[in-house]
């Protein structure tokens, strides 16, 4: 189905309830502009897009739109020869699109950084983690404060593979992220840890789908958000365990720290479980900073402002504590700490 054949989604749809499609479309919803390719630097060397991207199986509006606006793709292979791959995505144009396809055929790590002052960025990341491989993936969104970002990710995990995923989302003003992971084969495992800071009037909408398509697969999702000023954080999670997938262990938690009276956080974790013998848990919690934590820090000589900043930083840092890969974990924590310097 072409983009123009897909009806513009209305807000009754779970995926588009909080961020209308028109807010993240770069022009008018009824048009498909041709948008240039973003600059992709891999380990200090610019790489060119040279592969036509495969057509997505999903007839989901943002994925179809991104493909029709720019059909090129950057292929990135994760291999042992390159232990820490750092990709920086930026553009000098007002609008740009980038499609990165990751093939992980040996265990390794990959860090993606979104950088620069672009007005609108469309980003699609797809990836396969091959049998018995572990991919440690980190993404830092550090775009300029005015940027709008439309991001889709689609990951497939094969037998005995592991994807440990960390994201720090601090850049841009209007962000829509739709991240989907399919645990296709037995004993595959996903740990997904996402830290979000919304301040000023930043609007950050994460939709995260995790599909267990095979038995004895594990997933763990942790989204931690710190919301201040008039910031608005949205986290919608959809955890699905298909039929005949016994032995799955899945959980998702959304935690929000509300740091002002005008900040908003909406967390909607959903479960759809069609197998009997599984563990599936979900939860959401929102609160302000604990006054006992502040008092404890102040009793050690921290001013109230400093105490609160450290507690918030710690809350977000602890989101990344479960990432085993030291380079990815330290990169994410370093980017977060730099934000608070």
């Amino acid at each position: 189905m072409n983009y123009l054949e897909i009806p513009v989604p209305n807000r009754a749809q779970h995926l588009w309830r909080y961020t209308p499609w028109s807010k993240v479309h770069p022009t008018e919803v009824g048009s498909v502009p041709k948008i240039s390719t973003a600059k992709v630097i891999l380990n200090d060397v610019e790489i060119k897009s040279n592969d036509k991207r495969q057509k997505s199986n999903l007839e989901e509006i943002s994925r179809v739109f991104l493909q029709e606006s720019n059909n090129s793709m950057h292929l990135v292979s994760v291999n042992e020869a390159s232990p820490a791959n750092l990709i920086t995505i930026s553009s000098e144009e007002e609008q740009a699109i980038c499609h990165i396809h990751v093939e992980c055929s040996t265990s390794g790590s990959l860090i993606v950084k979104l950088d620069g002052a672009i007005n609108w960025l469309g980003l699609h990341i797809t990836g396969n983690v091959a049998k018995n491989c572990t991919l440690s993936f980190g993404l830092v969104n550090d775009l300029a404060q005015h940027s709008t970002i439309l991001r889709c990710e689609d990951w497939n995990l094969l037998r005995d593979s592991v994807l440990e995923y960390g994201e720090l989302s601090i850049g841009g003003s209007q962000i829509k992220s739709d991240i989907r992971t399919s645990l296709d084969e037995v004993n595959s495992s996903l740990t997904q840890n996402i830290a979000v800071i919304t301040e000023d009037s930043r609007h950050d909408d994460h939709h995260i789908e995790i599909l267990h398509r095979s038995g004895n697969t594990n997933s763990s999702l942790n989204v931690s958000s710190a919301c201040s000023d008039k910031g608005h954080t949205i986290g919608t999670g959809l955890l699905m365990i298909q039929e005949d997938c016994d032995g799955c262990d899945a959980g998702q938690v959304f935690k929000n720290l509300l740091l002002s009276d005008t900040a908003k956080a909406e967390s909607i974790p959903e479960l759809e479980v069609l197998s009997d013998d599984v563990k599936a848990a979900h939860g959401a919690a929102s609160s302000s900073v604990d006054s006992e934590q502040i008092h404890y820090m102040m009793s050690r000589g921290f001013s109230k402002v400093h105490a609160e900043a450290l507690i918030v930083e710690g809350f977000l840092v602890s989101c990344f504590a479960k990432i085993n890969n030291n380079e990815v974990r330290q990169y994410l924590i370093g980017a977060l700490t730099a934000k608070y310097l």
Partner: protein
Amino acid sequence: MSEVILNIKNLHVSVEGTKIIKGVDLTIKSGEIHAIMGRNGAGKSTLAHVLMGHPAYEITQGEIQYRGKPIEEYEVFERARAGMFLSFQYPASIPGVQVGNFLKKSVNNVRNEKVKARDFRKELNAAMEKLDMDKGFLSRYVNDGFSGGEKKRLEILQMMLLKPTLALLDETDSGLDIDALRLVAKGITETAEETGFLVITHYQRLLELIKPDFVHAMIDGKFVKSGGPELALKLEDQGYDWLEA
């Protein structure tokens, strides 16, 4: 002549309209160790918290002077920077903040001297050794997942590094086995000689190790009896009923 660090006159304190402390007088000079004993709910911890400036407690009458100045003039963090330290009975956990960083920042906040990183490490290592603490402690998050004993040791480690003028220890001995208690007592006795201590406890066993100069029995928000170490022995032996007779 020893300096008067803390001077409390006719202190009355309420929490959400409920009177907890109903007229306490206390003077602590540098180098003195004062112990407060009393039943649960007597107001011991309230006294420690009000001294440290916990916002939930309201002073309704009386005054507290710290080193000659009314304590109300100080915010909580200013009290810490002026040399007051509270070892919490239930210290808050701060996930994501590593103990090592927290200690370094606390020392920089509180001590009126620029401590070089190398000197800090040396001092930290020595204090941790005295408290039999593993180096792995430093990379853990503050009180996050700590056992009761680990929390108390971290409190004492902080006290040793912050070198307070007045240390308030709120049931630092509760929940400790005898070996941990000895280490905690060692930490207290090795803190600066001129530090004044206010030690809140239920048990004589800590006082055997740190030897208080004064013991105060607290009932229903008041000191009903003050004396020397022999009072602690009598309270341990006979309880508090005889003080109410």
